[in-house]
C-alpha cells in the first residue's frame, strides 16, 4: 500500500514549475528528483515546486528535496516552493530549508519574484 504522487510540469521561459499532488514520502521524493534532474538536464536552472496538492510530507521525502537543493546550489540555480500548508512551511523552517530555498505564498508571487531575480 503506497500512495503514489502525481506530478505535472509547466515549462516557462527559464523556469519550470512542478505541481505535486499527494504524499511526498520516499517514493514521492524520488519521483520529484527524477523530474527535477530531467529539467536541469534540459537547461532549467530555476525550479518552483508548487505543493498546493500536497497536504502531507515526511522527512525522508524532504531529505530528497534537500538533495535537489544541493544540486541547484552546485549549478548556481534555484529551487523554490509555493502553496505550502502552514505545517509543511513550519517543518521546512525547523529543518533550516528556508535558508536555501525561497518559500512563496502562491505561484503568481513566486513566478514574479523568480523571473525578476
Amino acid at each position: 500500500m503506497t500512495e503514489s504522487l502525481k506530478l505535472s510540469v509547466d515549462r516557462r521561459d527559464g523556469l519550470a514549475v512542478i505541481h505535486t499532488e499527494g504524499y511526498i514520502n520516499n517514493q514521492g521524493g524520488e519521483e520529484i528528483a527524477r523530474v527535477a534532474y530531467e529539467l536541469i538536464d534540459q537547461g532549467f536552472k530555476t525550479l518552483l515546486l508548487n505543493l498546493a496538492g500536497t497536504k502531507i510530507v515526511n522527512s525522508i521525502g524532504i531529505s530528497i528535496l534537500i538533495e535537489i537543493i544541493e544540486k541547484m546550489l552546485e549549478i548556481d540555480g534555484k529551487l523554490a516552493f509555493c502553496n505550502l500548508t502552514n505545517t509543511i512551511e513550519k517543518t521546512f523552517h525547523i529543518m533550516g530549508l528556508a535558508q536555501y530555498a525561497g518559500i512563496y505564498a502562491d505561484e503568481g508571487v513566486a513566478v514574479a519574484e523568480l523571473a525578476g531575480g
Partner: protein
Amino acid sequence: MQEVTLELPMFADMELTASKTARALGEQIRMSPDKIDEIRQAVIEACINAFEHSRAQDEKVRVVFKILGTHREPDGLQITVQDRGIGFAPGMLTPPDLKKKFGTGKRKRGWGLMIIKGLMDEVDIQSDEEGTRIVMRKMR
C-alpha cells in the same frame, strides 16, 4: 480519559493510518486544523523512525492516542509511539545541521526527532535495549 490503540505492521505508508486517527481525534476535541496537522506530521515522523531504525523483531509499532482532560473539556492529545526494537541513546544524538549535510555526498536524513520536538508541545523519549517509546503531547 478516552484512548485508541493501533498496532501497525511495518509496511510502507502505514504511518498514514496513524495520521488519519490523529486527525479524527483532533477533530473530535475541536483542535484547530493547524494543530491537528502538526500532530499528524509528528506522528508520521515517529512511526517512520520506528519503521526505519528500530529493527524490531515483531515488525510492529504500537501507537496509543489519549484524549487528555475530560470528555466535556478535553485539554489535548497525547500520542505514544512504541516499538520493541534495539533502542538508541537519545542523549548521544547530535541535532542535524543542514549546512553540514551539503557537499558530503551522503543522504540528507536524520530529521525525525527534530521535527517532532519542533511541532509538539511536550516530547519525552525513553529508549533501551528493549525498545523505544516516544510520548508526545499537544494541548488545545
